[in-house]
């Protein structure tokens, strides 16, 4: 292949990629659907405050976006009743590492491992306060 041909091939591949992107973006726009709570679970994020404050779970990310069904997790891995899982004594990181709760998928193979990327789910006291609307600032934060 001489230089001209190679240049043309590269140009062509760029065209194809651009076309693909357009098709994909178009498909997205057409396929954009309303969030259906009956199909995908509650839209409001689930916030766990025990054993530590706080961990956030989004039904949308897991069902609508990742394609999981309700019965992928309910009722075997998680009870449907809100607040029930937090009351379990074994709702800890160690249980996750043992394949329970979130750890059933977050094992490093199906989804990112439970002992990595802590702050994807852990929003902390600050994140929790923000969700409650009131933003607390540190007392002597503004000295300098």
């Amino acid at each position, binding site marked *: 292949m001489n230089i001209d041909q190679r240049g043309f091939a590269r140009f062509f591949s760029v065209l194809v990629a651009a076309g693909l992107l357009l098709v994909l973006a178009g498909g997205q726009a057409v396929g954009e659907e309303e969030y259906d709570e009956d199909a995908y679970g509650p839209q409001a994020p689930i916030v766990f405050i025990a*054993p*530590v*404050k706080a961990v956030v779970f989004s039904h949308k990310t897991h069902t609508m976006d990742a394609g999981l069904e309700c019965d992928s997790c309910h009722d075997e891995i998680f009870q449907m009743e809100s607040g029930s899982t937090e009351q379990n004594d074994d709702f800890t990181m160690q249980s996750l590492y043992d394949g329970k709760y979130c750890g059933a998928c977050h094992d490093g193979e199906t989804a990112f491992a439970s002992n990595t*990327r*802590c*702050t*994807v789910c*852990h*929003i*902390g*006291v*600050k*994140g929790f306060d923000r969700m409650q609307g009131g933003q607390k600032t*540190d*007392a*002597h*934060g503004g*000295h*300098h």
Partner: protein
Amino acid sequence: MKISDLEKLKNEGVENLPSSERRSFLKFGLSVTGVFLGGSILSLTSARNAQGIVELMPQQAQKFPYSPHYSMVIRQNRCIDCERCKEACVKTNFVPSYGYRTTILEMERETSPGESERIFMPVLCNHCNRPPCVRVCPTKATYKDKKTGIVMMDYKKCIGCKTCMAACPYNARYFKEDIRAVDKCNFCYDTRLVKGEKETACAAACPADVRVFGDLSDPDSRVYKLIHAPEKVAWVLRPETGALPNIYYMND
């Protein structure tokens, strides 16, 4: 004082004042505790490579300035901002709601377009080897403990001028109204260490093992081992101030 007298004074230099923008990282790594630390400090130059280049690099740890040389390693990416450290500190050291001895900062860092990660950064007094707060205190109410290197407060001597608060590069001090004096972290010296506890309240309360407290001069201590882990990158906050802090940060 006359100008002619002023001219005769020795220049005190700026190395103990905050924000002098000096960035001699390797030199810093050397002088931080008077030793060469095994890892790659600030990762700009691998310490191992540098060792080959700079012949004068000491091979073995020399004498530490303090014994025990208290320091803390903060494994930043493990922090989830549960703030149990803050709660424990408040309870142990009677910290009022308008101040803190330690707190958690929050940052959002873009990892790729449209994606970001949250970073929680615990902060506290860095118990600097060259503490700017001590340098500026007019009454010597704050001082470096000769044995442990802890930056301490003598509340009786504090006149509340708050110069130390302005000088601290880490915003680690607050004015405590009820004692009319500046208060700060002292590694729980009076509340725990003198009572035989081995850890600070914050380190003991951390469920994620973020805060590792110990004696940097003891090769058997966890802080020593973490800091000297060969391929581990450790960093400190605001190294350009030349304050030589004793709080080290690393990921995992």
